[in-house]
């Protein structure tokens, strides 16, 4: 990755409408009250968006002749009402944090990464291969060496897959939205081929497309006995802090945000815009790849066809719900994880199909994106310019 530690260039000369992405995260420390007000104002729309989505979802449940209260009670029971349920919610939230960060980071660079799904699948595949094949190739390894290698391998695979659309955009102007989607299909087909062919678990008992189990030395520890909660959650929280620090406290992060806010101004200021586009998408892909590696090393201990359940797509909703703030990604991922985790219970107890949570996700996305709807509904003061995350086909 071209992480040029160039000195912070002078800020671009008065870039016309200042993107919300470039606003300082925290107001200066002497204005704590102001900071609290800012935080409350920033939280109002996402929270009300979730509430409104749940209300509309309830109406949809009622229209189908089911009991919305029963459905939501079952959803709550399934996601949060016992240590096991909570642990499963956190297990769901772990890859969501990584992929949500991946999408949010790309947004800061003015880029829309819809390819987290494919980057995650490749990261998981490479991690699984390193996990089971490395001891055979290099002899037994201590966990202190093997586990980091597994995680690094998955990260690099995701980074490489993310760098391709970045390079294509920087070099030819081809839009990353189409290319990341195309690369999703290519990655999933490649993974399907490898899992059915060269990397398939050769044991005679195996009847499905999956790799062999990874070695014990490649596994992340579990955090509690009898629960599936694993140390990947801690890595995810670390990643959120690291992305926040990287975006707001390093020259590279500043440059990426400058390109996202106004590429013309960034170019005038002497920033290597093309390289920064590649860097932003490679870092974004790295986070998604790490998500896959952590799923393999912490949870599944192998890669299996179709294990990814739309983490990459849900990541878009998470990033937007967090209003692309790296630290906001954590609660947003917890919310989506809880919805996904509780859905099965809801289907079982209240006969409401699990797909309802996808509808809820779309509604949340809608109300976050169309802020003006929420503001009008709840008589909030109007916001400034509407949030614009992307810049058309350019």
């Amino acid at each position, binding site marked *: 990755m071209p992480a040029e530690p160039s000195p912070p260039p002078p800020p671009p000369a008065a870039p016309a409408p200042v993107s919300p992405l470039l606003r300082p995260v925290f107001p200066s420390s002497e204005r704590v009250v102001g900071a609290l007000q800012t935080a409350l104002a920033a939280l109002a729309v996402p929270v009300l968006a979730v509430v409104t989505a749940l209300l509309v979802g309830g109406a949809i449940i009622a229209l189908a002749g089911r009991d919305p209260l029963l459905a939501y009670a079952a959803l709550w029971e399934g996601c949060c009402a016992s240590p096991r349920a909570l642990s499963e919610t956190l297990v769901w939230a772990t890859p969501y944090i990584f992929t949500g960060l991946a999408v949010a980071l790309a947004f800061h660079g003015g880029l829309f990464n819809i390819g987290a799904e494919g980057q995650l699948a490749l990261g998981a595949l490479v991690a699984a291969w390193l996990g089971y094949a490395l001891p055979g190739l290099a002899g037994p390894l201590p966990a202190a060496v093997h586990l980091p290698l597994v995680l690094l391998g998955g990260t690099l695979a995701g980074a490489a897959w993310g760098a391709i659309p970045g390079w294509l955009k920087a*070099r030819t102007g081809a839009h990353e939205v189409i290319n990341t989607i195309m690369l999703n299909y290519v990655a999933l087909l490649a993974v399907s081929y490898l899992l059915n062919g060269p990397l398939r678990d050769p044991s005679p008992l195996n009847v499905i497309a999956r790799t062999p189990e990874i070695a014990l030395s490649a596994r992340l520890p579990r955090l509690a006995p009898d629960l599936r909660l694993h140390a990947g959650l801690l890595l995810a929280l670390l990643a959120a802090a690291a992305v926040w620090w990287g975006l707001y406290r390093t020259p590279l992060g500043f440059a990426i945000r400058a390109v996202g806010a106004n590429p013309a101004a960034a170019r005038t200021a002497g920033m290597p815009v093309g390289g920064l586009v590649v860097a932003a998408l490679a870092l974004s892909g790295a986070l998604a790849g790490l998500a896959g590696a952590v799923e393999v090393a912490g949870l599944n201990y192998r890669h299996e066809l179709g294990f990814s359940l739309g983490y990459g797509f849900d990541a878009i909703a998470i990033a937007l719900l967090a209003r692309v703030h790296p630290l906001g990604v954590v609660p947003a991922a917890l919310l989506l994880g809880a919805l996904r985790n509780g859905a099965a219970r809801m289907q079982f107890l209240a006969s409401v199909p699990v797909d309802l949570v996808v509808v809820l996700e779309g509604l949340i996305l809608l109300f976050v994106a169309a802020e003006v709807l929420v503001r009008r509904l709840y008589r909030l003061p109007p916001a400034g310019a509407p949030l614009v995350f992307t810049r058309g086909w350019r």
Partner: protein
Amino acid sequence: MTGRRLALILAAVGLIVAAAVALGSGQMPAPAIVASMLRTTLQVATPLTLGALAGLYCERAGVINIGIEGMMLLAAFGGFVAALAAHAALGDGAVGASLAIGVAAAVLCGGLAGAFHALLCVTYRVDQIISGTVLNVLAIGLTGYLSRQLFFQSGMPHAPGVLPTLRLPLLADLPLVGGVFEQQPIALAALALVALTHVVLFHTVWGLRARAVGEHPRAADTAGIAVARVRWANVVVGGLVAGLAGAYFTLESVPTFEPLMTNGRGFIALAAMIFGGWTPLGAWAASLVFGAAQALQINAQGFGLAVPSQLVGMLPYLLTMLALAGLAGRTRPPAADGQPYDPHEAQA
């Protein structure tokens, strides 16, 4: 769209057909392979052509639409359910009428999805790519939810059939290639819509206004064109066309619905539109390239080749990327594509 570009794109189709002939030469006579390839190409290119035209109406008026995939999925489901309901009401004597009602419902669903997109991005000036994503997520969620809610106990039913194959008079009687001209109604409608869209965009007042609004909304506004209204109309028309593309999936291709059945076709259609330089003829030619790649994949299975199906399956996607990377030269989007227009905003 220059004639040279168009020729270049069509040459790519020829190249893929030639590849099929080379691969299958041991098993079938070459003319039969060519006829089969062309027929399948036209068939499978149908949703891509229609999707690309849908995108074209929106984008020529300055509204990016990455929600075509979702529009098609909603329409495929809506049309399917309507055809089932009509069949239940009308009985076996009126299969054709049930299917026609299904197609009409699908087109209507597409139009409603278009109105939703227009409401968000034209009226509320929401980020257009986000609005398209909302549409895609809601379409996946709603069709999945409703199909499970409606058909959970009974299992997924089958529609009363698919639209009949029509023989174009004279052309279908030609020796060897006659089969190419035996197509189903939506495939034929797609061809007609390519011509119609070309005329509408470049030879009517509607098209002139749409293009003006897509290139320079402020100038159009100054000239007395109601920017928001023109954008609304074009996005809804785009939705109607995407709805017809949706009908292809459940009423022309297979008589059933399955979740996620559009399988990325909406995005490939978008790539075809870009590849085709934002023109109807170019978009159609580009759709044929992707259709031919898919036809090659279908025919290659028939030839019993040793290449893993997943690798052949990557072909349309890789082709899309190559196309976008400017294999056939750069293309230029409408100047105001993707930019919300606020009539009260001070001129920058």
